């Protein structure tokens, strides 16, 4: 336990938390957009997985990390287009469509990975990190928070953009109305289904980038089924935050810490079985829900009322 309170532990913790939290942040931002418009994106796991796979492949074959991120966005977008067509236009049940996307993503990526790489897991080289000139000298934060690859800062920019979008633009207003009171939006002359479609597409694209972040940065390899529940955590973060982007960021940080804590602890000489580590974030969510215990946070109606009500 001796290494627990050193600077290097803290630094490792923060770096790890960022690495683990960024995919969550991006996916949760996407889910926020979807949920605010009234669509429960159960298929998040699928978007992320596809993004991870497409991102990895594009980066690997294209020898460019940025190509990877772009591919992640596009693959998430395509999957979201399917969800949009089924859920928004054909009004199929959102949960089932989400499950279909998850299964499809899992199936496709496992099969394609097997066809391409068999049982080998090639590794990508690390992305270059940029150290911010003065800030990098700060102890602990300097070599963790302020020494990150450019994509990190891009993600932060996306966060700010989403916040601005929701609060200060007419599209953001329409999007929120689509979730709160679709009939009012319709009467105001806005096409509810188009609004929701755009929200779904955006959520897919963001989650796809998140998935690419996961495979390109966080692990450097692609493993079938590697998302393993992150998509659901993103959904929970978005639900608890209920549209407030600052809370989304906070939630992503907290979960990032809980996910990365095992590596950091190992560095400090504390050993925790992996199963406990995998369990932690979910146990944390359940504990928090029990303590908070208010229905406002996970509305029973989300994902279902929108099916019956119809835009």
């Amino acid at each position, binding site marked *: 336990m001796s290494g627990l309170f050193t600077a290097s532990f803290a630094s490792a913790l923060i770096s790890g938390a960022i690495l683990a939290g960024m995919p969550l942040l991006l996916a949760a931002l996407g889910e926020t957009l979807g949920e605010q418009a009234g669509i*429960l994106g*159960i298929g998040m796991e699928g978007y992320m997985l596809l993004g991870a796979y497409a991102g990895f492949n594009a980066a690997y074959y294209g020898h460019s990390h940025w190509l990877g991120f772009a591919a992640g966005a596009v693959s998430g977008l395509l999957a979201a287009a*399917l969800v949009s067509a*089924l859920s928004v236009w*054909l*009004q*199929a*049940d959102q*949960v*089932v*469509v989400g*499950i*279909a*996307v*998850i*299964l*499809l993503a*899992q*199936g*496709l990526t*496992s*099969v394609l*990975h*097997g*066809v391409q790489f068999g049982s080998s897991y090639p590794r990508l080289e690390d992305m270059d990190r940029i150290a911010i000139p003065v800030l990098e000298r700060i102890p602990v934060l300097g070599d963790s928070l302020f020494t990150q690859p450019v994509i990190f800062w891009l993600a932060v920019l996306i966060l700010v953009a989403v916040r601005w979008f929701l609060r200060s633009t007419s599209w953001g207003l329409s999007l929120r109305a689509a979730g709160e009171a679709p*009939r009012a939006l*319709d009467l105001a002359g806005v*096409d*509810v289904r188009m609004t929701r479609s755009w929200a779904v597409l955006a959520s897919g694209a963001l989650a796809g980038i998140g998935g690419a972040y996961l495979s390109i940065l966080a692990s450097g390899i692609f493993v*079938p089924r590697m998302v393993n*529940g992150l998509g*659901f955590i993103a*959904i*929970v973060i978005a*639900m608890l935050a209920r549209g407030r982007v600052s809370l989304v960021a906070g939630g992503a940080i907290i979960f990032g810490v809980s996910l990365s804590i095992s590596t950091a602890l190992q560095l400090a000489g504390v050993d925790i*079985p992996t*199963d*406990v580590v*995998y*369990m932690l974030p*979910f*146990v944390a*969510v*359940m504990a928090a*829900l*029990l303590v908070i*215990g*208010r*229905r406002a*946070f*996970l*509305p*029973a109606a*989300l*994902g279902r009322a929108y099916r019956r009500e*119809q*835009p």
Partner: protein
Amino acid sequence: MKGDAGALSPGRPAERVVIRAAARAGQAVLPLAAGLALGAAVLVALGRNPLAFYSDLFSAGLFSQAGLEASLTRLAPLLLIGIGYIVAFRAGLWNIGGDGQFLMAAAVVAGTAPLLVEALPRAAALILLAAIGFAVGGGWALLPAYLRAWHGMNEIITSVMMSYVGINLANLLIKGPWRSAETNVPQTQAVPLDDLLPRLGTSSIHIGLLVALLASLAVWYALRNTSTGLRLSILGASPRLAGHAGLPVKRLILGAFFFSGGFVGLGASIEILGVWGYMRADWNPQFGLALFGLVFLGRLSPLAVIPLAFFYAVLEIGGRDAVRKASLDYDFILILIALMLITLAVSRYLNWRRTVACATPALPPPSRDQARTE
């Protein structure tokens, strides 16, 4: 739709029931076939021969004695899980945490089996273990149920969370307190074959299948003809009416979830007790998610879920062989399932469209009261 009592042939009641069942089956078969056809397209894109694939699949899963027995064996847990989902659905609840409930029950059953089988006569031990599996599965479902009943929290999310906790906790139990000292790979101590569930006749199918079939019948009867079953139906059809009518909503939610998880746990029990005799760590057959989608879209009665679960079993068992021969990852089956979910969803939409006269581009037809009373 239930309202079309008179729409079909007005023959004797029995005839009508059969015709209606056949119509519904037809409605399901076409999309399933369409899904398989789309799967064929994917196979072609991957450079594999779809005809060979499907013939491998069905002969390995259905048209061979070993395959048929394996599929029927697989049917048992799938059917129980499907029943579990239906019980929850009937009450309008979504128990997506099937995997966690399954693995927790399996772990506890596998962990305690060696002990109980030693201490008790075979039949007593097996029955007790089955009950334990039921209780563990049901118990695991209680937390999401409580949060839904008392705090109105969306049970989709909470049951998924519990599922992940369950998956990992089960692993911990197997790698920890119940780890067998006799093997290198972490698993529970194996129960000798003779002490497992007896087989049916000379086949390799264990009596778990009978248990599953009986459970189907029992649940079908209970949902139709008992007051509790009717209460669940009302809760599922209109939670507000349930409150208005003074039904004990919270207890119903708890009960529905408990039995839902319970049947899943029972499915886990008979899988362990019938097929394996032990449980390996990091084993997750993932029966839950895919079956959930199929059962939901099928909206089936507990009886009609039998052919659907059997179909799924054939896909899994036959698919194992077919993917190996086509040198594809086993997860290809998931693609097939996903495609079928999509085609089922599309077909439901087409059916709905056919029954609607004029759908405005902006809104669905106004609510019934609006239309009639002005």
